[in-house]
């Protein structure tokens, strides 16, 4: 079973990100569970969402304390919330940041990846909601869910131009990561 924890602020589409990953895993023929950890509706407050993916039915109901993967939708959370808590030593954390991993100065043995999600979102979608970019980068980095499945999930959940723009953002993120892999 793979466990993913998503950190962000209310309004950045954290829950949607978790749901899209879950739907994509479902389309890929896997079992998935996604759920938020939040309270009343409040824009801007730090929130978390969790995803579990497995080849068999998922029964566990506790929050994800030892994630294999972390997705951080807002780099400024790094200073205020202990996002790295519990991350597995050989895990990976993907951060929405306009800096390179080394520049963030994070103390962890896990792999650190970054992508300027907000900038790309503003360019392609017109709003600073980075979740499609983060998922795109995540798919590309981990291969945990297929890009096609996420594309379908986005188009089903967000009809019309919103869906198209998010798919474009998803694909851009994927391209960026692919290019990085080639250059590495």
């Amino acid at each position, binding site marked *: 079973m793979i466990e993913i924890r998503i950190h962000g602020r209310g309004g950045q589409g954290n829950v949607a990100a978790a749901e899209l990953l879950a739907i994509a895993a479902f389309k890929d023929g896997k079992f998935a569970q996604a759920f938020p950890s939040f*309270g*009343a*509706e*409040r*824009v*801007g*407050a730090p929130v978390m969402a969790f995803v579990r993916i497995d080849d068999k039915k998922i029964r566990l109901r506790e929050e994800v304390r030892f994630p294999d993967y972390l997705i951080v939708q807002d780099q400024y959370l790094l200073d205020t919330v202990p996002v790295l808590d519990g991350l597995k030593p050989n895990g990976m954390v993907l951060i929405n940041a306009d800096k390179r991993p080394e520049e963030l100065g994070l103390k962890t043995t896990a792999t650190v990846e970054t992508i300027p999600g907000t900038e790309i979102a503003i360019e392609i979608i017109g709003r600073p909601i980075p979740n499609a970019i983060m998922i795109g980068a995540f798919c590309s980095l981990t291969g945990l869910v297929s890009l096609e499945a996420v594309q379908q999930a986005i188009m089903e959940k967000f009809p019309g131009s919103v869906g198209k723009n998010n798919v474009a953002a998803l694909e851009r993120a994927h391209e960026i990561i692919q290019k990085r892999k080639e250059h590495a």
Partner: protein
Amino acid sequence: MIELSQEDLNRVEKKNLFASGHRACGGCGQALAARLVVDAAGENTIALMATGCLEIFSTPYPDPSWRIPFLHSLFENCAAVASGVEAAYKALKKGPVNIIAQGGDGGTADIGFQCISGMFERGHNVLYVCYDNEAYMNTGVQRSSFTPLGARTTTTPMGNRTRKKDLPQIAVDHRIPYVATATVDDYRDLQRKVKTALSIEGPKYLHILAPCPLGWGHPGDMTVMLCRLAKDTGLFPVFEVLHGKLMNVLKVPIKKPVEDYLKLQNRFRHLFKKGVPTATVAEIQEIADQNIERFNI
């Protein structure tokens, strides 16, 4: 960047009895209103509040924002609880103290209706402040009896088909000594009304229009502008009723069509098909026109 001296900071911090650091959304009309109300009331005040946005974002343990004593009980009983506090002060011959009960749509006009009517009818010396954001915002934008005609909420997905419950009128009909309406953009007027209310013995009702960026669907920096338009279209009349007499109606020499107000909010977006207003817009204009005539705005 302006550097504030320690003296400045002390002064600023002392002034705000509703401190910053609460968890309201950016541009929240209610947070702004609460701060203005409490600062106008001063330190000698006990605040009661109903469950709702205000309570959730201003009282999380261990960081409440209130620098005055406050109590939150349930969603529906704020006015009754305030009545009890008032009765205690009377019985114990304590005070005088300002007792301010606060609620949103639900806590005032729906689930709290029974208790507010009782408080008015029995004549308790309490100021009730209603922060009207026109839906149940705390639980995710469901309709209330304050949801205006045509507004989309999650429980009126096709647009609300009822008119706003006229609670100021209902308050007047309870024959309480002071009823007023106000908006968060005109802080002087709002604070004057708070002070006026608190200078009068008996039940007082202050109804404040408090835009909600998340629920109404507008950017946080438009809160003030939307209040102005609500007044300029005639949709939200601003007035006072002192001992049953209507006075100080805010006149609007150059009125704006309701479209100017509706077009800026996502909750009314479905009322325009490719920019052309549907029939509901005319119904809303009719409501505005009725207000204009009734209050001679």
